[in-house]
């Protein structure tokens, strides 16, 4: 992420706390990254690592009464956190759009597909009536749905999961957003459909020079479709690098463990999956030191007592990790 060009999105020390009866839950804790037009940032991590909370914080759809957000989210130079709610509403759906994990729950079950697409066209582009319908038909065609005009009159339950996700993507792309946040867009779909959906996103991204944040727990998905990757653990980014660098020589033991835990085709049959032992920490009372410390094979006293900061491993400063005892990789510059 060192290439030239102004950043479209610059997230700085972003923190999101959910208010719970036990105290603030640090869902996102000091996350920073930047993203240029046309670029894709992958965000990986286990369930509950704060990936979705981060996505929802950036697009600003978390309840203001139940969460507190601090830090800075600069989008085209404007800090989204200081914008008024009406200004933010103008950005949502037009400049920043989102695709959710499960299209079965993210499409309104009682509204026709057509209405769900045209309402966003009406909201941001002022398109109504025939103009809106013909634009909606175009959108459905562009995401690869057959019989688009019939689809407009159908309800979500009349479509298959893959078709529903295509509709959700059509909704997200309706106003040609500059940034698309895709939160596990293929997790609920069949494996055969997954690649189609990811290819579709990739093609549309290239065609519109759109930036994308691709959230996934699947390293394979991230490896194939991103330029850079941020690994999240317990609300923090623990390693961040270009996709190539991360997969060549990851430094953080958590990233290494994630990679090991993915099934490998070259393993003999019935090889046990190497799951990461233990559970993520309590996010209301996280451990004082490294949050992965309690589950880490390399942990020592310093890991338990002092929190490692995200810092560069090389002179270029492109590969960041937060670890006291990084794993040595063959390709790493010593």
């Amino acid at each position: 992420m060192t290439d030239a060009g102004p950043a479209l999105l610059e997230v700085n020390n972003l923190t999101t706390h959910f208010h719970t009866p036990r105290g603030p839950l640090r869902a996102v804790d000091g996350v920073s990254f930047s993203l240029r037009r046309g670029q894709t940032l992958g965000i990986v991590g286990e369930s509950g690592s704060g990936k979705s909370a981060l996505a929802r914080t950036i697009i600003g759809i978390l309840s203001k009464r139940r969460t507190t957000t601090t830090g800075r989210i600069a989008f085209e130079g404007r800090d989204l956190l200081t914008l008024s709610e009406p200004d933010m509403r103008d950005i949502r759906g037009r400049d920043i759009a989102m695709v959710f994990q499960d299209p079965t729950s993210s499409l309104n079950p009682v509204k026709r597909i057509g209405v769900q697409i045209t309402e966003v066209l009406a909201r941001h582009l002022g398109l109504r009536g025939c103009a809106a319908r013909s634009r909606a038909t175009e959108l459905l065609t562009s995401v690869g749905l057959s019989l688009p005009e019939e689809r407009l009159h159908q309800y979500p339950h009349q479509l298959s999961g893959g078709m529903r996700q295509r509709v959700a993507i059509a909704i997200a792309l309706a106003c040609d957003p500059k940034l698309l946040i895709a939160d596990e867009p293929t997790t609920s779909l069949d494996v055969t459909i997954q690649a189609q959906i990811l290819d579709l996103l990739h093609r549309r991204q290239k065609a519109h020079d759109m930036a994308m944040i691709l959230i996934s727990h699947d390293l394979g998905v991230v490896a194939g479709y991103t330029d850079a990757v941020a690994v999240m653990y317990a609300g923090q980014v623990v390693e961040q690098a270009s996709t190539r660098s991360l997969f060549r020589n990851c430094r953080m033991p958590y990233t290494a463990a994630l990679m090991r835990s993915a099934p490998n085709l070259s393993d003999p049959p019935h090889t046990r999956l190497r799951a990461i032992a233990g559970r993520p920490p309590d996010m209301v009372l996280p451990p004082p030191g490294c949050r992965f410390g309690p589950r880490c094979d390399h942990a020592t006293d310093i890991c338990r007592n002092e929190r490692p900061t995200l810092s560069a491993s090389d002179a270029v400063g492109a590969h960041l990790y937060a670890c006291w005892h990084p794993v040595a990789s063959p390709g790493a510059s010593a």
Partner: protein
Amino acid sequence: MMSYFLRKLLRLGVVLLVVAAASFLLMTLLPGDVALALLGNDATPEAVAQVRAELGLDQPLLLRYLHWLGGFLRGDLGRSYITQVPVMESILDRLPVTIELMLLSQGLALLIAVPAGVLCAYKAGSRIDQFANAVALLLLAAPVFILAILLMFLFALKLRWLPSTGYVPFMTDPVRNLAHLALPALAIALAEWPSLFAVLRADMIRTLQQDYIALAKAKGLGPAFILFRHALRPSSFTLVTISGLQIAATIAGALVVETIFGLPGIGRMLTGAVYNRDMMLVQGCVAVISVGYVLINFGVDLIYALLDPRVRQ
């Protein structure tokens, strides 16, 4: 949609037949002899037998049922043994009052409950939500006759804005008709909106946590649009069910309110008929009220289908 409608219609027919049979049996199974009740205990056996023959009570049960059912289907519910007035005529006389009271009270209740429920779900846990919940709980605990008497005291006796008792048919004078029905309808509405409010608020809070609401927000839609255009419909199922039950209950259950405000509704007529042992009238009222219940439930089923396309399959 059409097959759903036909299926429901077929079921409606079956239920109506069962209801008719039950209404008929209700009277037959009651202890006591109608002829004896009419003539008094001193009547001679000959006189009793004659009255029984006149009323057709000496015929077998099945025959009497078929005879009654034939009448029921033609809208003929027989004549009152006491006043000799056709039962259908008495009912048609009173039914408009009850139906108007039913529609007005439920309309008012929904008019209070829907905006309050939507707002409180949106602002769940806030001061305004706590306040509305407290008011709803208070009204839920207050019996309807207390509300009726308080309203009458305040608006009719103290402020003198509205008449306290009596009734004017809508066709005679619509304004005075509404003035007479305002307080009774408000009393019932105040007693009924809390349950509507509570179920809508709870369902709405659940709906607002759905992903499609998050997506609606991510589209840049405003809160009012999201609440009323995206969240209200999928949150209305329990509301419609309870509303249907409440409307049905008003047909016979508005008795107390009808009595307090002197409204000539079905509830009061039925009570009077029970006291006078006017069995034909009781039977007719029960049949009409039951049909009302069944029709309202049929309406609720149709509304489900309008609310959710998945039901129509």
